[in-house]
């Protein structure tokens, strides 16, 4: 059996057969990752354009250009980078390996998800040629109905395709995780990253249709004479906001729950300790996934709701902070009495992620309070909040994950020096770019403005300098990872002495993942022994 499976692996295949026609979850995961990193550079470029504009109060670019830049920045980062990289990239590569399966449940549908994702990205790219969307990633009507040109139509088309890709991917993950686990791997023995992917897949499955509804009606209002959002004809623009946020608040958790999963894998390995509170971490993800569907109107406290109507949503938004803080404390407790090694992924996960993400969590509690949101809504305080969550949280974790699984995926090691340089540029850049935005927001600077009151210039310039630091950090990181993919020193199957199943097979794993399907008898977070570590150190190349 093993011989039959290995036979095609040995023969050389053309690029088309190797990549374009592949249905191997690992190759598809790599394609997701590489594509998403390309779009990460693009989205980052738009961010730098936005920050460059804000160097001077009058703005550098015309307001219309600026509006297109920030719309493209958020659209690309959310729909073409963070979601596909975490679910399509990490999820695809790791889930079958971590549950001891040979592939996803539906390998061809998996490939389709990738190609749909690529198509959505190409549609976003096309809009750069024919006119970019300019209504923000939220694209509220009536402005998004009145905005002319093909930009918003392309935006809707791209989102529809990305949404379909998401839904297919979610179904695939749910079936794979529910049905294809190795013998002995009960739900309560699954790696925490798999738990987080299961929760994320359910959120995508239930949330994405609401987004599809919102943007389909938007398209109809734009071109087919419908009046869903036209108040003069009896429609209501708030309907769009409800539908949009019913997806887009869970979307924030779609972008952070898999990140939580990655952190839960990295911390115990480099602390040489079992994860603290396995069940608490797993079930708090479930709680977040569930509660995430009951907070959406906290984006609409000042959008025409009666003020007291915000109270239930304030309460649900505050409750959701509880499972998140449970995770934070369990992660800290994982490092407590550990033997912490300062590897590059550990730096991103500990100081980088925990150290930055909590600021986004705390500012989230502040804007969840209705009276405080009445003041801070649509100011830079909210921009600071979301960037501490999505950059200090999701992107920082993506970097932790990339540096953690890189030797598994490539079979080689990056330069650790450049890795640390990238980390410090990211850590410092994050604080310099995003922390002053809190101050600007408190002082009353509205978001999404191409020019601003000169009184705000100092902190804006600081933010812009920080953004350039982040840009430099991104280049260092990507260069380091690309350059060493073919040239770095070779590593063995398990260079970090990690516990999950992907480390129990070769680096990179063979096409069929495991010569023999493993039998699982416990969760992967078992204590380390001195003998085992000494042995691992000896066998390391």
């Amino acid at each position, binding site marked *: 059996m093993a011989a039959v499976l290995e036979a095609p692996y040995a023969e050389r295949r053309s690029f088309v057969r190797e990549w374009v026609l592949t249905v191997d979850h690992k190759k598809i995961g790599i394609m997701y990752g590489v594509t998403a990193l390309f779009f990460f550079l693009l989205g980052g470029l738009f961010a730098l354009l936005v920050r460059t504009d804000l160097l001077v109060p009058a*703005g550098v670019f015309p*307001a219309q250009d600026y*509006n297109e830049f920030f719309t493209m920045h958020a659209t690309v980062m959310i729909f073409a980078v963070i979601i596909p990289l975490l679910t399509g990239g990490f999820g695809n590569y790791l889930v079958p390996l971590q549950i001891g399966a040979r592939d996803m449940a539906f390998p061809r549908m998996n490939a389709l998800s990738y190609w749909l994702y690529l198509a959505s990205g190409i549609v976003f790219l096309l809009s750069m040629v024919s006119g970019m969307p300019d*209504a923000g990633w939220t694209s*509220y009507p*009536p*402005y998004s109905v*009145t905005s002319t040109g093909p930009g918003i139509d392309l935006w809707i088309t791209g989102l529809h395709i990305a949404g379909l890709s998401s839904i297919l991917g979610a179904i695939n993950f749910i079936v794979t995780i529910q049905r294809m686990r190795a013998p002995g791997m009960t739900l309560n023995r699954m790696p925490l990253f798999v738990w987080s992917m299961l929760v994320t897949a359910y959120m995508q499955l239930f949330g994405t249709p609401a987004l599809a509804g919102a943007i389909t009606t938007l398209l109809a209002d734009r071109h087919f004479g419908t009046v869903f959002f036209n108040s*003069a004809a009896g429609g*209501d*623009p*708030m309907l769009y906001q409800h539908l949009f946020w019913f997806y887009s608040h869970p979307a924030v958790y779609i972008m952070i729950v898999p990140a939580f999963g990655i952190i839960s894998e990295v911390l115990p390995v480099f602390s*040489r*300790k*079992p994860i*603290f*509170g396995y069940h*608490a971490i797993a079930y708090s993800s479930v709680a977040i996934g569930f509660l995430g569907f009951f907070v959406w109107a906290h984006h609409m406290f*000042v*959008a*025409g709701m009666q*003020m007291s109507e915000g109270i239930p949503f304030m*309460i649900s938004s*505050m*409750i959701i*902070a509880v499972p998140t*803080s*449970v995770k934070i404390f369990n992660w*800290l*407790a994982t*490092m*407590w*009495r*550990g*033997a*912490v*090694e300062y590897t590059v992924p550990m730096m991103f996960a500990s100081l980088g992620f*925990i150290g930055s993400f*909590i*600021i986004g969590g705390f500012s989230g*509690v*502040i804007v969840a309070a*209705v*009276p*405080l949101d*009445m*003041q801070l809504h*649509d100011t830079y305080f909210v921009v600071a909040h979301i960037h501490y969550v999505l950059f200090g949280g999701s992107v920082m974790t993506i970097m932790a994950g990339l540096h953690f699984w890189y030797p598994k995926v490539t079979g080689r090691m990056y330069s650790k020096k450049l890795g640390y340089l990238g980390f410090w540029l990211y850590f410092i850049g994050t604080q310099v770019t995003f922390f002053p935005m809190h101050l*600007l927001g*408190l*002082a*009353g600077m*509205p*978001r999404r403005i191409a*020019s*601003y*009151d000169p*009184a*705000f210039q100092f902190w804006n310039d600081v933010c812009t300098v920080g953004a350039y630091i982040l840009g430099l950090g991104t280049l260092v990181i990507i260069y380091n990872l690309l350059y060493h993919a073919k040239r770095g020193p070779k590593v063995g199957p398990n260079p970090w002495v990690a516990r999950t199943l992907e480390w129990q097979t070769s680096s990179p794993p063979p096409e069929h993942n495991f010569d023999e399907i493993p039998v699982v008898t416990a969760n992967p977070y078992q204590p*380390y022994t001195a003998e085992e570590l000494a042995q691992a150190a000896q066998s390391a190349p």
Partner: protein
Amino acid sequence: MGNSWLPVQLTQMAHNVDGLFYFVLAVVTFFFVLVEVLLITFLVRYRRTKRNQVGANVHGNNKLEFVWTLVPALILVIMGVASVHDVYAAQTQPAKPVVIQVIGHEWYWEFKYPNGVDTHNDLRIPAGEDVRFDITSQDVIHGFYLAPMRMQQDALPGRETQFWVDVEPKYVGQTFLVPCDQFCGPGHPTMVGHMTIMSESDFNQWLATEKQQQSKSSGS
């Protein structure tokens, strides 16, 4: 600097909201410091050394889980309850306020005063009186945002939103900006009105002269 922190508080409501803000900020800062200190301490104290190669064999602790679930939950309940009071205070309308209609346009603010006076980007507010804003939009969604009052409501087409203010008299003569904070297109950053705080008598006098001038210019 004044541009790095909260602006002046023109109303009692602004004082209350800031009180809530500082309370939440204090709690949040306490936990922020706690987490960062634990993080750094554990990173340094339990770093990998020749002697410290293996972490302890600890899987968890139900008592701790219980504590760090319950304590944040209780604190969040307290924050929520503290917030509810301010919500109802803001929502409860004063009797017989001066009503100023606020209408968002691409890209300016229109203000209509009780006697029919109509201005663009020129908001005048009598101090020491209850003033209610009835807010709507002629076209797309705008955001009527008064930072010194710590208050905003979207200006929506086909729907009226409201809030009210009562400015303390000591601010008479001062002016403030009235930006639009809900994205509304290329004119969004320049959609900024001015707000002048006036004494009651100055306000009424201004309304009267303005009324005369406006009817003259529309009559001719």
